[in-house]
């Protein structure tokens, strides 16, 4: 092969420089996206055991590329977990590159790093006061308040022992212009003395004051032979009371800053850098020190562009059509629009959150959908798969808890991401998704959280008390309680008109099949690893029904049809399947003890993406969103759609009751008597699942559970329909069935005709917990 000439080389360099960018955009959309100036995520520092679980990554360089410099603030431990220069945040994990296991991590040159311990001392100690190394610090120790956007500048706020601290971050450049350090600007309200760790300096032996800083430069050397690094911390302060009392010391391998007690607000800057032995940082502070409080009243818009799309009205001759609210997939920020939750701000405006942390507003949701306008309202939230509007304010539920999004200056963009409740305990598990957000009539919030499933699907990583639970946060955000346990991947919940709490779950370890459950305090859904009980449970609370893989292999949320809409479906429960992209009607039957059992029938509507969340609009139509993030038959990456009832008849079962003698199915419309009374028009099968720690369960026939699996055919018992009789009103069929029994799963196939000649074909999948005599 010929060696390239210099000219060739330069040409090759041009080609090589151009190609990767294009390839990267196309193949790595997670790298191409502009996440905004702050990304809330779980981040690994330079050492693998330093993880900021509820990290705020603030980009200090070119934010679109997330490179050159950045800082991770740990909002639980109130510390700068790590800062880097000459590197970037490597985006790894489920919402980014899809990998199961890895999480985002800092790369590049280490500017500073701290151990996974509180950033502020309490009662003289930096020891972790929490019973588990998860969750926020005790409130008396400190608490995170949220972050503000002031243009591209981010201000974070927290309280420590009664003092309110505002902070912002900047890169510090050395004499040569390169980024070499992190500048932290503090504004601390009056209060007692505080001590905070600036960076870890393992082996540091002490330091000396150097000339040049406005307060003074103090340098610390590591012990000889320890990598040869030199940690430099420079502190500058100014303010009404001057800088007296600010000081830096080495304590137990940490560089600790003392913030003196004050009776008025104290402002100061701190510079931190790590430079090679023998080098000189020559840190350069900005000339003027910023006042931070004025930056917490709202900044200019960062995303002024308004994007227009035209929706598409569905067609068809069925009882429903599906309209599409077209999403602006092609947007200036290459934001990946995978909508995981939404709510309405008013009749024709919705707020939608994306898996990668955006909240978008879409206006113009009217009958025609022909003038839709989209704006980017907020960015950088922590995988928010729950969103609820309360009194005109958007609340999101992400992995880091519930946040309130405030537009402080009314310019249509979020300026303040306020912590509403961040008590939830999390780990870095890739599978502990934060699902859904709903409220009850009293204003309490509900959401669910996945269990930290192992990569590959089986078993779990480290479990903490909120894994696999459904939780409630009080209306004022002050209190978090676990309502139900034993969940595995409960992607979606529902709150009924009478306070009914429902949740779906999908098959996996200790979860033999998808289940739809009603929750009351203490309900245990069966996943032993997330039972959070003293002794391992030996039984579980029954669901309304189990669902086989073909019906639902991965559940979404639930929603109740408003009383005034959809005729015979009014007041009924609907369940979404994320995996099968369907919406099901849930037909319920309750016994005298209050136990609910039921079954589902698919509503005839085809959706473009998965079914995760649903809400009824003011127009009485059902709106749904979903995306493609794990296994689903969804075709599109995301879709925001409207399921609209037409004038045409439903031709569906709308009521199900089972008895010792057989099955009663009530249809929406009058049936043709001849077909309806032919027993051959129906097929009834029953089977069970095995509750065990294996991943999901095969089917077992009740008549002979020793038959483990029927390869190539369903392993079910067929029950004989001996007769079928139609009620006088022509809508209710009673099937006399031999061998009615309690079972985990029943399939009732029907193939009849309506009185209008239409074919009425389909299947009901239900569960039988109780059977009683049919009283006529």
């Amino acid at each position, binding site marked *: 092969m010929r060696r390239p000439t210099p000219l060739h080389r330069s040409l090759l360099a041009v080609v090589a420089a151009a190609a990767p960018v294009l390839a990267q955009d196309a193949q790595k*959309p997670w790298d191409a996206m502009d996440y905004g100036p702050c990304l809330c995520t779980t981040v690994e520092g330079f050492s693998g055991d330093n993880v900021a679980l509820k990290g705020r990554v603030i980009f200090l360089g070119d934010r679109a590329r997330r490179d050159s410099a950045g800082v991770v603030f740990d909002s639980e431990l109130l510390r700068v977990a790590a800062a880097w220069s000459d590197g970037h945040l490597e985006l790894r994990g*489920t919402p980014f590159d*899809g*990998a*199961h296991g890895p999480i985002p991590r800092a790369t590049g040159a280490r500017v500073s790093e701290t151990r996974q311990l509180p950033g502020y001392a309490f009662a003289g100690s930096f020891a972790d006061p929490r019973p588990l190394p998860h969750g926020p610090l005790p409130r008396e120790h400190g608490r995170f308040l949220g972050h503000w956007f002031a243009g591209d500048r981010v201000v974070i706020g927290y309280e420590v022992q009664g003092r309110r601290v505002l902070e912002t971050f900047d890169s510090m450049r050395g004499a040569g212009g390169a980024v070499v350090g992190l500048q932290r600007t503090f504004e601390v309200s009056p209060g007692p003395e505080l001590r905070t760790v600036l960076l870890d300096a393992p082996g540091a032996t002490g330091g000396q004051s150097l000339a040049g800083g406005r307060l003074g430069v103090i340098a610390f050397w590591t012990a000889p032979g320890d990598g040869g690094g030199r940690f430099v911390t420079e502190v500058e302060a100014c303010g009404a009371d001057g800088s007296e009392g600010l000081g830096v010391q080495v304590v137990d391998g940490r560089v600790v800053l003392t913030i003196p007690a004050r009776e008025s607000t104290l402002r100061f800057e701190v510079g931190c850098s790590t430079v090679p032995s023998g080098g000189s940082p020559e840190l350069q502070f900005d000339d003027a020190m910023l006042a931070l409080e004025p930056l917490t009243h709202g900044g200019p818009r960062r995303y002024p562009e308004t994007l227009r799309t035209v929706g598409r009205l569905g067609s068809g001759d069925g009882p429903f059509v599906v309209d599409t609210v077209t999403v602006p997939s092609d947007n200036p920020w290459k934001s990946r629009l995978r909508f995981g939750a939404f709510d309405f701000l008013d009749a024709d405006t919705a707020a939608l959150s994306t898996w990668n942390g955006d909240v978008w507003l879409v206006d113009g949701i009217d009958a025609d959908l022909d003038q839709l306008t989209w704006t980017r309202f907020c960015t950088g939230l922590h995988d928010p798969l729950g969103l609820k509007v309360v009194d005109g304010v958007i609340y999101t539920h992400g992995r880091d808890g519930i946040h309130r999004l405030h537009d402080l200056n009314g310019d249509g963009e979020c300026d303040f991401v306020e912590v509403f409740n961040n008590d939830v305990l999390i780990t870095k598990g890739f599978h502990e998704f934060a699902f859904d957000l709903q409220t009850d009539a009293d204003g309490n919030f509900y959401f669910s959280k996945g269990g930290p499933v192992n990569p*590959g*699907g*089986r078993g779990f990583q480290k479990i903490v008390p909120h894994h696999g639970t459904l939780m409630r946060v009080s209306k004022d955000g002050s209190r978090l309680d676990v309502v139900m346990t034993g969940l595995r991947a409960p992607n979606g919940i529902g709150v009924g008109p009478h306070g009914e709490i429902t949740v779906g779950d999908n098959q*996996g370890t200790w979860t033999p099949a998808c289940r739809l459950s009603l929750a009351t305090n203490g309900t245990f859904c069966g996943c032993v690893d997330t039972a959070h009980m003293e002794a391992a449970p030996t039984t579980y609370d029954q669901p309304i029904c189990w669902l086989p*893989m*073909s019906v639902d*292999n991965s559940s979404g949320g639930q929603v109740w049809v408003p009383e005034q809409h959809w005729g015979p479906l009014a007041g009924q429960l609907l369940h979404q399947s994320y*995996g*099968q992209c369907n919406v099901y009607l849930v037909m319920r039957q309750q016994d005298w003890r209050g136990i609910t059992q039921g079954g589902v029938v698919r509503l005839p509507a*085809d*959706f*473009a*993406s998965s079914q995760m969340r649903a809400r009824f609009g003011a127009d009485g139509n059902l709106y749904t969103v979903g995306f*493609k993030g*794990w*296994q*689903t*038959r*969804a*075709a*599109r*990456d995301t879709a925001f759609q409207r399921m609209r009832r037409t004038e045409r008849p439903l031709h569906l079962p709308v009521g199900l009751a089972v008895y010792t003698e057989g099955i009663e199915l009530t249809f929406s419309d009058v049936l043709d008597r001849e077909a309806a009374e*032919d027993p*051959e*028009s129906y*097929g009834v099968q029953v089977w069970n699942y*095995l509750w*065990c720690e*294996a*991943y*999901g*369960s*095969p089917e077992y*026939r009740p*008549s*002979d559970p*020793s*038959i*483990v*699996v*029927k*390869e*190539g*055919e*369903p392993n079910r018992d*067929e029950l004989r329909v001996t007769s079928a009789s139609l009620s006088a009103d022509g809508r209710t069929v009673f099937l006399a069935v031999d061998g009615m029994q309690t079972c985990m799963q029943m399939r009732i*196939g029907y*193939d009849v005709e309506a009185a209008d000649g239409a*074919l009425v*074909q389909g299947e009901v999948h239900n569960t039988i917990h109780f059977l009683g005599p049919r009283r006529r």
Partner: protein
Amino acid sequence: MTGAVSRSRLRALALASGAVLAIAAVHLDVEAGVPPEVASGLALTIEPLGGAKPGSLASDTRRARLLALHVPRREAPTPFTRPGAFRATWRGALEIPARDDYTFAFQGSGRFRLEIDGAVVLEAQGRHDEPLAGAAVRLRKGARQLVAVYEAPLSGQGDVRVLWSSRRFGSEPIPPTAFAHDPADPALVAGELRRAGRMLFATRRCGSCHAPGAAAMPELAMRGPDLAGAGDRLESAWLAAWIRAPRALRPDARMPHIAAVDDPDGAVRDLAAFVAAQRGAAAPVGDGAEGDDAEGDDAEGDDAEGDARAGARVWADLGCFACHGFADDGPAGAPPTWRSLDLAGAKFRPGAMARFLREPARHDPFIRMPDLALSDTEARDLEAFVRSRSAGSVPAVAPGDPARGAQRYAELGCASCHAVPAPAPVQRDLASLCADPGALTRGCLAADAGARGSAPDFGLTDDERAALRAFAADEGVASLGRAVAIEVLDRQLDERACVACHQVDGQTSWWLARAGRLESLELPERAARADGHVEVAQLRPALTQIGDKLRRDWTAGFVAGRIESPRPWLHARMPRLPGLADVIATGFAHAHGHAADPEPVAVDPARAAVGRGLIEQQGGFGCVTCHAVFGRQPAALFEVQGIDLGRVAERLRPAWYRRWMLDPERIEPAAKMPRFATDAGRTALEPFDGDAAAQFDAIWHWLHAGAGGR
């Protein structure tokens, strides 16, 4: 049941082709659960057009799994009829799963007529490469009488495939589980009887003494084990016990008891001594002569002791328990090939069991024990495990005289079957025996020792003798000169115990049925769980549709061991069957009515480019989430892995691919693959205006563009 063949024998025959079942429930307990009244599949009668001629019956009936057939030109449609034009008539019941409107379609060439409950629902004539559908008919649930008559063209090349569809499912070949027939049908009983006799002729190595002339039936090549080096492998005491009475050690042993001789005890001692004196041919495990050890785990040297605990894991992972067990898990409900290993420790000399496991066919090419490509370590561990459980013993035996044994060996004609030096003495040739009805009641076929004289004692039952006589009477000699791939396959599915690991026609594999036997091993998780829970990802593919699913050339290469498994995650290993691979692959194809493999796909680059995009997560179906693609690992594997899409083009037939893509669950109810197409054949993706079939076809084109299309 009529006829002379016992129920249990015919039952075994039926099981051989994966058959006997109650339509509603199949139970694995062979003794308890087999309902004798209904059998799966159909009765197929073949009649050469033009009537009976020498060497050919006028009519021959066998069980057929499917309403499909391919007969190559110049080949016989059955071993008992001559090649040439023929009529095929399938009779039985078609189980209609639900009241629905059904459409039947014919694919192939010739004349075809299908009647359901006496009404003609499809008629066709001529050549139809694409299915020709009849009018839709409404059928009620339940068993419907089916008669299908097909006349092959004069060339004698027969091609017929019958498909059905309904409002509930798309066009597909009618599955074998939808068919049932009366096993007591006299023509079928007669046909099965002559087949049983024919197979007995082969498996009892009758041809060793009674030369059959033309011998196309592959099983005629069967011989007894090569005894060279037997003394290095087998313990003398066990040899004596075996020679004394093989059926006492293994009830269905194929080796005859030795004929009446003077001083039988002495003869046994001397024969055992002679065989034990055959030394010097065995190579120790790991000597390099048997191929390199892929795992390179032979650092411990030849004499390393195996680890019984590790051997238990191999036992579980490779499904040894499907066919083998020990006294403590007993033969109750065991499958036909079940063999106790209680005496395995007494049989093999130390280390010889591992050598045998490494290369079971080394001294017996037709041995039923599969070659699972064990490493040296696995073989040693397995030997250690088997020895730890193998508690049986044989009585000690006084030393015999090898020289006298050699004499006995020659006198008794042992060399007829065992390839130790002496040439096989040919007794009476088969044709002359068959022509002499009296001969068929004497010698080997005699009912008692007196009439048997000096002939070997095969322990034949009355049924088996009847089968051999029927075979002899019904053009048996001529039949041995014909090999019909479909029938070879049917026999070999049993002979090779394929159903031990694979499901066929709804019959659960013995592996699954016996997974509970692993409880006593106290193994964690893998292969099977103590609670009987099954890892779906570890299921071996069912063979029911394999001839319709896989290309013939791929099946042949895979069965021969030339092609790597597309399911590397399976603990189970497919045994190599190089000698039978071709006929097995051909049998599968012909049974499903496929003559040859599909022509290579002329890749349309534009379509392929669309297909490339359709497999991705963004803008596609996300196939790459669970499937590797030309070695690129799946993006986010979760619980169940899909086959590398790079292996699709080499394996699948296009029609099956299309059916799978449109509705995976229709083919495999436990499939984890999501269904992307609606009942109306649409998807939500844009290419080809949402036409699912066109989109899947684009992927098909891309897959055929090969790795270069990446």
